[in-house]
């Protein structure tokens, strides 16, 4: 059986690795540790030389696919180019090698950067204040929910516990609201064209009573990539009953400099710096999920924030803050990348980002709409659109088959089976950094699959270029093997 070679398999007893201190440097003193706690044997870590280690991970990197490898049309994830200048910025020792307890007076430049970023993000979102604390989008959502909770408690409205979430929303939305102690009411938008309407809202208000509605979690453009133009009446109706509006910033790339969540009536927004502001996804993280709020919520933001007094900067925490949601001061090195990205682009550049994200999505939509079912293709999409593979079902071809064919041909797959509104969904977000040539290559591949689905579906499923395929997820779950253990154990 062909098995992957682990670093542990490359170990040779007695071999030495990277020399941090000279290998023969020994402690000068006898250890003083409680005998109950002292370790008898070293841990069974691998023993490899540095070159073996380098080849091991360089070869593993060849089995991995990033934006630097090729096109990544992963809907709602904004997999755009990660500029190398922002990486370089984050690796400066003046940022990367600073201990977080260094007093504020000795790190004025580092605080100045955070203060600028707070201000810029507030303006970009149409908000009054921003906290850079949350570690990722989901933590931003959670922090936002806690802000709402504290706001209502402060007003004595402790009965406001119903958080409205469209069933088309990202799974983190309901999970974050629940974690903050809200009763989540998932609204069936899936069967109503995927949009939130005043009518749907009225049903929820009637069911729970206006005094129990805490708010709603929405994103705009919607998960279909369509601008929800009924946002103003929805916002007005919710504000009428005293509820708050939460904006999920996953799709903000389409709006930069064009319109702002604050102007649409949202009270609170979370951003994903690893999407809109092009900090790399890192194979799953780190992200960063700042939250911006309107003035009435600013007192509840998670601390610390950076304040400016005259020419100097200091930490502060709002009076009624929800407190600290992570250690120290946020994902600082991710903040540096976002700050540098904004400076590289400038005000006009950010608007260009949104416009070209929209142009690229509409171009690809137009090229694919005759071969794939695309709901709402009769109107312009924003930065992404959802195609359906439903029409190939009779040939035994599903959305996942199209996705795997793309992998086979050197592309990343679109987001598959999400949103649930569309059967056999393939959610395509090209992003603004992809050239027309790349988009054309992708479109031609997609058109070829549509053709193959009709003429030779088995060929479409062949996946001849993939070295590893048909990974058995059921087997993995039933026979959990989530670590290497030494042979003798």
């Amino acid at each position, binding site marked *: 059986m062909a098995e992957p070679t682990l670093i542990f398999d490359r170990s040779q007893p007695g071999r030495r690795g990277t020399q941090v201190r000279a290998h023969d440097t020994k402690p000068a003193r006898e250890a003083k540790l409680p005998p109950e706690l002292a370790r008898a044997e070293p841990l069974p870590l691998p023993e490899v030389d540095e070159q073996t280690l380098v080849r091991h991970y360089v070869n593993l990197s060849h089995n991995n696919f990033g934006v630097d490898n090729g096109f990544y049309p992963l809907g709602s994830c904004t997999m755009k180019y990660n500029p190398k200048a922002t990486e370089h910025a984050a690796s400066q020792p003046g940022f990367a090698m600073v201990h977080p307890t260094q007093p504020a007076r000795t790190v004025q430049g580092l605080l100045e950067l955070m203060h600028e970023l707070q201000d810029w993000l507030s303006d970009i979102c149409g908000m009054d204040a921003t906290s850079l604390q949350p570690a990722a989008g989901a933590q931003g959502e959670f922090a936002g929910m806690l802000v709402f909770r504290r706001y209502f408690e402060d007003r004595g409205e402790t009965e406001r516990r119903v958080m409205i979430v469209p069933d088309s929303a990202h799974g983190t939305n309901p999970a974050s609201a629940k974690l903050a102690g809200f009763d989540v009411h998932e609204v069936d938008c899936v069967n109503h064209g995927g949009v939130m309407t005043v009518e749907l809202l009225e049903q929820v208000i009637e069911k729970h009573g206006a005094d129990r509605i805490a708010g709603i979690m929405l994103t705009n453009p919607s998960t279909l990539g369509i601008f929800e133009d009924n946002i103003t009446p929805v916002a007005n109706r919710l504000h009428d009953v005293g509820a708050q509006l939460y904006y999920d910033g996953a799709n903000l790339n389409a709006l930069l400099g064009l319109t702002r969540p604050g102007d649409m009536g949202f009270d609170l927004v979370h951003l994903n710096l690893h999407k809109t502001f092009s900090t790399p996804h890192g194979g799953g993280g780190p992200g960063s999920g700042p939250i911006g709020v309107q003035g009435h919520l600013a007192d509840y933001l998670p601390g610390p924030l950076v304040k400016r007094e005259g020419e100097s900067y200091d930490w502060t925490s709002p009076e009624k803050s929800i407190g600290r949601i992570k250690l120290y001061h946020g994902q600082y090195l991710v903040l540096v990348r976002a700050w540098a990205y904004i400076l*590289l682009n400038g005000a006009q550049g950010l608007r260009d980002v949104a416009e070209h994200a929209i142009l690229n999505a509409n171009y690809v939509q137009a090229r694919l709409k005759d071969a794939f079912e695309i709901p709402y293709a009769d109107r312009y999409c924003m930065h992404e659109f959802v195609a359906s593979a439903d029409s190939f079902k009779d040939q035994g071809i599903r959305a996942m088959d199209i996705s795997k064919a793309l992998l086979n041909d050197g592309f990343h797959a679109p987001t598959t089976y999400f949103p649930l509104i569309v059967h056999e969904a393939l959610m395509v977000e090209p992003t603004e950094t992809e050239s027309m040539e790349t988009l054309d290559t992708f479109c031609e591949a997609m058109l070829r699959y549509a053709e193959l689905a009709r003429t030779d579906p088995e060929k479409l499923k062949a996946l001849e270029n993939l070295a590893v395929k048909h990974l058995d997820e059921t087997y993995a779950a039933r026979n959990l093997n989530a670590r290497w253990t030494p042979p003798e154990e």
Partner: protein
Amino acid sequence: MTFIPHTAEQRARMLAAAGAKDIEDLLGTIPADLRLNRPLNVPEAHGEAGVCRRIHRLVTDSQQIALNRVFAGGGVYPHFVPAVVDELSHRGEFYTAYTPYQPEISQGMLQCIYEYQSYICMLTGMEVTNASGYDGGTTLADSVLMSALSHKGKRTKVVFAPHVDPQAKDVVAAYNIGMELELVTGNPPDGRYEGECGLKDLLDDNTTCVVFQYPNCLGYTYAELAERIQEVHDAGAFAIVMYYPFAAGMLKTPGELGADIVCGEAQCLGNPMGFGGPLLGFLACREKLVRVMPGRLIGKTKCERGDAEGEGFVMTLQAREQHIRRVRATSNICSNEALLALRTCIYMGAIGRSGFTQLAELCHDNALAAHEALTAIDGVSDYYEGRMFFNEFTLLFPEGKRDAIYDLALERGILAGVKPDARQAPDLNNALTFAFTEIHRESDINALVNCVKEVL
């Protein structure tokens, strides 16, 4: 248009293909009254050289302390990061990739995280670990949540042993706004020793877990930890241990001492201090708790490799997670700290079996040397006289002298420890907690000792 590749001619062709006259035409779906009719209030575009200039100024406006003159810990430690870690983790195939939901083209990252999980299990003595959390504070909150979930809401009291990192406890408190558990801290009596703090009296059949920190946030080890954990188990509660994984080079793992859940901060294993972020939260547990564990998990499975049957890696047990389970998920976590987990995986392989022990011994040796020299100074006393420590300890200074020492050291380019949180005990206002790693040499320790001598 810094990163937009279109030529004017291509843009025109693309617009035509989309059936639009111009870009403004495409934007027509945004209602006019919602449009922003002014430029964003951010600076004009800087070229790369311009950004570098600004960075240079920001960095020069701050004091940069050499790594070997940082004696501060508190979750974030000045360990040396070998060049090979930066070099390999900066490969674009790794750092520009998304979460490995498509295993066919993500075997590299998936295997690295599987190896990372193997390391974390070894370092903690646990059977299973997630693919990372945000930091040591949030993974502590996750651990508490796991415990409560496992008791299905029937036990709602969380007991903290004394000297669990107050900042991490703040994070638990914020998470608890939603959880509404009862949070209780054992208070050390006059002896100020958590071994005698009456933890046992706080345990009852409503206690879901007891949280220990090992070594504790003032740096001291805890000889009776195994006995305390047994008491927790006798009460039917879970023992959560927040842990500094570098200590595994010399000390028994929390798993060997009986812990059920082990969490903490792994910045120390190959990651930069980064002014406190991003950090690397780890969370490991006994396999029986895996169904309530939050976060991603990588597992090995069967697949086709070439034309043969083989093995590969996938994300597994996803039914716990928000993208499947939504409101009933074990947590809302989605993005984690995968790139830092990758770095830790490379770091552990680079220093290897003997290197890890050697570096841990040098950390301990430096701490012993500094402790001996500092406590020999008149007026300086050990916060916990006679207690043992791994690489961190806390010293008390005469009333009013602590800040003078700290400030003089700063003037000389030395970060003289961390000022411990005095919410734990008022006399900590006169104390500093010092941390030592393999990076420090005798001359560094002497420079620190001299600052203390000069003030006293």
